[in-house]
């Protein structure tokens, strides 16, 4: 489901228009352009709420937000890759999974 900017402002309590416009300009949030309007997907809405929360709860200013978002994006990117890799491993026959398990170095060396 995609929502426009007005709907987003209604839905996300505590968000004001100038703020979200700045965030989109900073590319912290990437809505899709549709004519003059923006369309936000669920992931975009969740990201808006995340930014709102880290700014409010951790009192982060505009300098710190991109740093945090950049790190989060890296973590989630790695987690998505890990999930893909794990699914690929899960599809292997038991002896292959066992071999992979055996081949994992101990944590201290890993």
């Amino acid at each position, binding site marked *: 489901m995609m929502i426009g900017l007005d*709907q987003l402002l*209604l*839905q*996300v*309590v*505590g968000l004001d228009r100038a703020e979200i416009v700045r965030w989109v300009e900073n590319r912290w949030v*990437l809505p899709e352009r549709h004519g003059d309007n923006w369309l936000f*997907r*669920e*992931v975009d809405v*969740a*990201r808006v*709420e*995340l930014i709102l929360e880290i700014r*409010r709860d951790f009192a982060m200013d505009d300098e710190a937000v991109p740093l945090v*978002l*950049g790190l*989060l*994006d*890296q973590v*989630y*990117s*790695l*987690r*998505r*890759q890990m*999930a*893909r*890799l794990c699914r*690929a491993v899960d599809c*292997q*026959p038991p*002896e*292959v999974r066992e071999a992979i398990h055996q081949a994992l170095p101990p944590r201290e060396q890993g």
Partner: protein
Amino acid sequence: MATETPYQVLGVKSDASADDIRKAYRKLAKQYHPDLNPGKPAAEARFKSISAAYDLLSDPEKRARYDRGEIDESGVEKPRYSYRPHAEGAQGWKYRPEGEMNVEDLEDILSMFGGARRGRAGRAGEGLRMPGADRQFTMTVDFVEAATGGRKRLSLAPDEWLDVTIPAGIEDGQVLRLRGKGGPGLGGGPSGDALIEVHVAPHPFFRRDGDNIRMELPVSLTEAVLGARVSVPTITGPVTMTIPKGSDTGAQLRLRGKGIHRRGKEGDQFVTLKVVIGEAGDPELASFLEGWAAKHETDPRQGMGS
């Protein structure tokens, strides 16, 4: 669709003062009060939502929690949202990091080890080309099949099998490699191989000795003393063999070329005779030997120091 916010219900701005809110509520309450609007369910419903909105906004603590998004317009605790399921879901790919950290594709991750090990890392954008995995199987063949060679079908699944050519003289524990019969390759890479470990079942009377076959052949006393032509099993079927007159237990006869044929050489079959008297002996033979032995005294254990 989003429901009205309590501010919208009361027709006030989100930064309205407590006083403004009270005034707005009183005005609306008078307008929609059920007692003033008998028999009008719409007015009654409206009055209920006005009361609920006022209930929320007149309590500074509740209002603050609502403003922070901790509770919804009916005062119910909102589930703490999480960015994670979205970030890790299909839509999350939108927010992959830019710049030096290149983890855009699984292929990049795979090439970190696949490429290093196999030496086939594709360049960026080329995609990873990787041979398929080898698959391992075991199969058991009987002694004669292993000695003569042949084809054998190995069932992997009800509708999947491998036709395996058993080379003549295969030994127990030997591994056959079927090229391209393993897992499929990645990105146009070649398929892996099927590795089949072959076990050779023992035989009731044949034994392997390199490319020669050895066996023990029971013969009767008559055959041993008088000689005979007897049928002898070999790995390729029975053949007729001549037992010379006066053969002893332990005498070894060679059937040339009846062993394992491989690498252009032919092994032999060695037959060791074993004289058998038969159950409990024969009374007639016994009485004959009593008379015969008196005239032919021999000591087979001569020289053993007994």
